[in-house]
């Protein structure tokens, strides 16, 4: 016998994401899902961003997604903010932060004391783009060292995100990358993408990114 059915395979995952979102909204927490390749500079960007946000009176926290190790969480410790390390596989597994993982990590955060929560996703331009976590916005970090072609090779990631942080721009003089072509490729995949070039090393562009976050937070409240 045939059983007719139309059911979203990610129904359970999305239901948990909606529960996360309701929790965030009830507490007035703005949530950014940061995604990128490994080594693009997500943690370094957060190291420079969070102190500037604190100067603006914004209390931050980070859910640090990694396959294994707590290296990135330990790097963030000097900031003195709540950090929850969410490991997907202690022995080198896979591959994205899921809504259930966020739900588990939230047990360790006092949302009353947080205005802005960063979810630093696992370094991977493929799988993390697939999953809604309950975030307010998705941001992709793309470093200049990765080449002009990445938006074309990973279109779902660049379709899903509202903002692209073009990182490591301090390396521009030493690379052959054509930044105009890179930006053109981003717009080919997502004509509405906002792009902020920045460098965590030099600090260039970080204040623009902070202003962007503040304006997004204001829109929510």
């Amino acid at each position, binding site marked *: *016998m*045939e*059983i*007719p*059915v*139309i*059911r*979203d*395979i*990610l*129904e*359970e*995952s999305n239901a948990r994401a909606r529960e996360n979102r309701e929790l965030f909204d009830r507490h007035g927490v703005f949530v950014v899902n940061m995604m990128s390749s490994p080594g693009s500079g997500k943690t370094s960007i957060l190291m420079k961003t969070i102190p500037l946000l604190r100067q603006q009176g914004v209390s931050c926290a980070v859910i640090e997604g990694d396959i294994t190790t*707590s290296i990135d*969480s*330990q790097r963030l*410790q000097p900031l*003195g*903010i*709540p*950090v*929850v*390390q*969410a*490991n*997907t*596989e*202690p022995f080198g*597994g*896979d*591959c*994205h932060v*899921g809504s*259930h*993982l966020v739900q*588990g*990590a939230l*047990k*360790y955060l006092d949302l009353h004391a947080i205005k802005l929560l960063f979810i630093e996703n696992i370094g991977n331009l*493929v*799988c993390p*783009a*697939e999953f809604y976590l309950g975030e307010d916005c998705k941001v992709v970090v793309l470093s200049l060292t990765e080449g002009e072609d990445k*938006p*074309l*090779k990973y*279109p*779902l990631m660049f*379709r899903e995100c509202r903002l692209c942080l073009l990182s490591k721009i301090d390396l521009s003089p030493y690379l052959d990358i054509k930044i105009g072509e890179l930006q053109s490729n981003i*717009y*080919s*995949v*997502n*004509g*509405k993408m906002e792009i902020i070039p920045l460098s965590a090393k030099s600090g260039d562009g970080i204040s623009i990114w902070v202003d962007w976050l503040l304006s997004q937070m204001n829109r929510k409240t």
Partner: protein
Amino acid sequence: MRLTVWGNWVMHEMYLTECIIDSVKKSLPKKISPDAVTEVQVQVGELDAVIPETLIFLFDAIKGSHGLPKAKLTVDQVPVRCRCQSCGNEFRVDSPLFICPSCQSGSVELLSGRGMILTRIIADEE
């Protein structure tokens, strides 16, 4: 020290395969046992980072231990289609260029080609 470590054990493609099996079980009428299921059909958007052969391989690998030993999975890919928000043109996207072929606008909305849906189950009569 405010560092908290919280672990979990998940793998992307396996997670999706388990989601398919969970969806099948939730969709079965009470009188149908999961081990009576012979066919499962899903639609997967072309924009999704999912290779049909990988899903089928993993489904076959775990279906027995999840109570669906006779089930065969088929995966239909759904083409990416967009509508231009400037001129209203609807078009197929078969390369990673989301640009209207009619007016060259990059302001396009996705109509199909994203998401994973369980569309059909066939089971033996009890």
